[in-house]
């Protein structure tokens, strides 16, 4: 990960396409020895809670039984502007905004030279061209393309037969990495990894299992974050993760390494196959955060020279299960 923009060369350093292999580039280890937050030490005090699965939300447990774990109705948007809790300055801004809305939108109509449009207009060009929506790859191709695309930009893909095997792989990887802190989402599948038993010397934090903790700081101090993907698109090499009470955004963002678990049956061909369901679910069923992740954090802002691991995780693994 020196100054090297050739994806294949990056790949060589990360070579891990075969099952179970892993490697940690030298500079990453260096980063990990650097305290990432001022609160780094705090999380150690919560070790006693690690085996205690404590789901906040029963609806999510049910939902999580299905491999296609898309957030449920409990994720519903705040019916907001619940005036009761609003401070007066905000209520004032809110009133001002509602007064302006009429004028602002009417001004647009008048510029467009017609009365205000209130009915949904005909949208004949909605979404991708027809030819695009009519093709897909078979499972083998989806796996191959996803792997190739994710790796091409510096991500890693490991195929495992089962959740059990995924657990084994993670254990081995964490040991190699000498990980001290792992944060994972609070989902039944991830509990089945039995990391707590298998990695007795590592502190495993379970997202949001205890409301008293500063979870953001915990995630920022973790070496590894483990999340479930709700879906993936092979064409762009993208995994989709969503937020909920038990699925923190920070888990896939703040740790040094991000491990994403993806069931093969949730791997689609096109990005549209992940996006169109958002329209179908509708506003009220959408999670607050939907994140499409296509590789490690990177920047090319210095001389367009590729650097991996700016802000987000510099190392990302997708464990393809099944």
């Amino acid at each position, binding site marked *: 990960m020196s100054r090297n923009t050739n994806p294949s060369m990056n790949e060589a350093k990360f070579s891990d396409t075969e099952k179970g292999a892993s490697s940690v580039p030298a500079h990453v280890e260096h980063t990990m020895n650097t305290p990432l937050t001022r609160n780094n030490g705090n999380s150690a005090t919560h070790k006693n809670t690690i085996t205690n699965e404590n789901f906040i939300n029963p609806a999510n447990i049910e939902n999580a039984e299905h491999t296609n774990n898309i957030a449920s109705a409990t994720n519903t948007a705040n019916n907001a502007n619940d005036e009761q809790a609003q401070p007066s300055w905000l209520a004032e801004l809110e009133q001002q905004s509602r007064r302006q809305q009429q004028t*602002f939108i009417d001004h647009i109509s008048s510029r467009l030279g017609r009365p205000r449009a209130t009915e*949904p*207009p005909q949208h004949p060009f909605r979404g991708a061209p027809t030819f695009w929506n009519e093709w897909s790859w078979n499972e083998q191709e989806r796996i191959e393309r996803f792997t190739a695309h994710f790796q091409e930009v510096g991500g890693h893909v490991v195929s495992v037969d089962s959740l059990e095997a995924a657990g084994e792989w993670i254990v081995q990887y964490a040991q190699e990495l000498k990980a001290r802190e792992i944060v994972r989402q609070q989902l039944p599948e991830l509990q089945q990894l039995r990391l707590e038993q298998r990695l007795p010397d590592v502190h495993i934090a379970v997202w949001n299992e205890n409301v008293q903790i500063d979870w953001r700081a915990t995630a920022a101090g973790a070496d590894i974050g483990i999340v479930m993907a709700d879906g993936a698109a092979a064409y762009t090499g993208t995994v989709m993760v969503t937020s909920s009470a038990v699925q923190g955004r920070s888990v896939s963002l703040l740790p040094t390494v991000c491990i994403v678990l993806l069931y093969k049956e949730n791997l689609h061909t096109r990005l549209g196959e992940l996006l169109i369901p*958002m329209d179908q679910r509708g506003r009220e069923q959408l999670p*607050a955060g939907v994140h499409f992740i296509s590789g490690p954090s990177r920047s090319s802002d*210095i001389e367009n020279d590729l650097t991996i691991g700016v802000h987000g995780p510099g190392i990302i693994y997708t464990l393809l299960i099944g």
Partner: protein
Amino acid sequence: MSTSEQRSTTVKERADIALNNDFLRKAVRFTTERLRNGKQIASTEHGNWDEWRERGRQIRLHTIAHLDYYLNLFVDNARANGVHVHFAEDTAAATEIVMTIARHKQAQSVVKSKSMVSEELHINHALEEAGIEAVESDLGEYIIQLAGEGPSHIVIPAIHKNRYQIAELLSEDAGEQLPPDTTILAGYVRRKLREKFLDADIGMTGCNFAIAETGSMVLFENEGNARMVTTVPKTQITLMGMERIIPSWEDLEVMATLLPRSATGQRLTMYMSGITGPKRQQDGDGPEEMHIVIVDNGRSSQLGDPEFQELLNCIRCGACLNVCPVYRQIGGHSYGGTYSGPIGAVLTPALNRNVAEWDDIANASSLCGACYEACPVKIPLHDMLVYLRRRKVERGLGNRWESLGMKGFAVVMGNSKRLGAALKMGRLFQKPIVHNGTISLKVGPLKGWNTYRDMPSMADDPFRERWTKLEQELDQQSVTMDQTMQDRMEQLIQARQRRQRGDRNES
């Protein structure tokens, strides 16, 4: 939009500084070449690129043509999601809203992800005046913030700086000498900004797209800083140009196909995030309070203007900058505004409604059309530049000498006899200054030309004077046209006549 000190100079003066800065020109060439090659490869690999461009254009045309409906729908849905939506007609109104929120939040620090609207509004300046620290978290933005400059490229803000200059800036920031090694420099910024993220009271973002039907906002990025800004601080403020709307997530697939490929040649940026309202009550992270400020600032004046409405279709990919042969020579700061390159040359005067400014910026183009060819939503920027020039002339603000010259041009070119006479006169007058078939005198309009080139002299016998003899000569050796060729020509004429009849029947 542009700062006052920039307005006091002309594009020529600013360009001269850039043209004499080899450092800058090399840096700009190097990076734009990479970006345009990347785009070329990515769009070819994807295939059917022109169909996708047309699709993108249609979606944008449709949305803007019904912007009142879609924006209103977005506002209602965003509110239902728990977002506080605000409207700002101009910079002052937007600043006032942001400052009101910051004041009541008793904010000491605002951490920002990349937002061209925030650059346009100079929000950092306002925050700093109020004693609030504003931290740009995009690596490139952080660099130019340290340098006290504005972005010189829509996508790569520090494109004009090389690693040595950047190492110097970051070393000063760090208080220790950092080597000019990209990995080490980026590593420094990562560590430094981690603290800033966790400290910040407010996270501020821009908005790539806003989805009307669900009230969601979408951000494209590679570093993860926009995710940080929308995950860590308790309050999120999003600044959004009023035209950022698309109807649905389904439409987002088209934008997600066009934007990253056009901007950086990627299949998709490393992160694409859809944010639908503040964090849910039981979520462990995400902003507790979310504001979206919808900014007009000159945009609505493009609506209903047949020549400029399409300007609002722009998705801010920067592809037009990367192919522009003028941008390549002079970089972004020469344009004197927040937005540079071909899109900036049109957008800056259009948003400012500032006739005086139309002068030189619109002239800084050879009208080569590379911007149009690169644009993923097919905005005819090269035509718009001519419209700007024309509007200036129509308002009587044209250069006096040029106006006279163009009147003379029309007189000569309005009649072939006058043209013939002018050619004769020209030949007569050029005699004393022609040497060896060229004119290298450096006076008047010839000065600029002849600094870089030799001017050819006029021919002794212009074509119109050669014609009679040539025609006579060819008449004597006439060749008969091949029958198939003749048939082709007849068919073309007939097809043309059918089309013309069809047109007439329709109208």
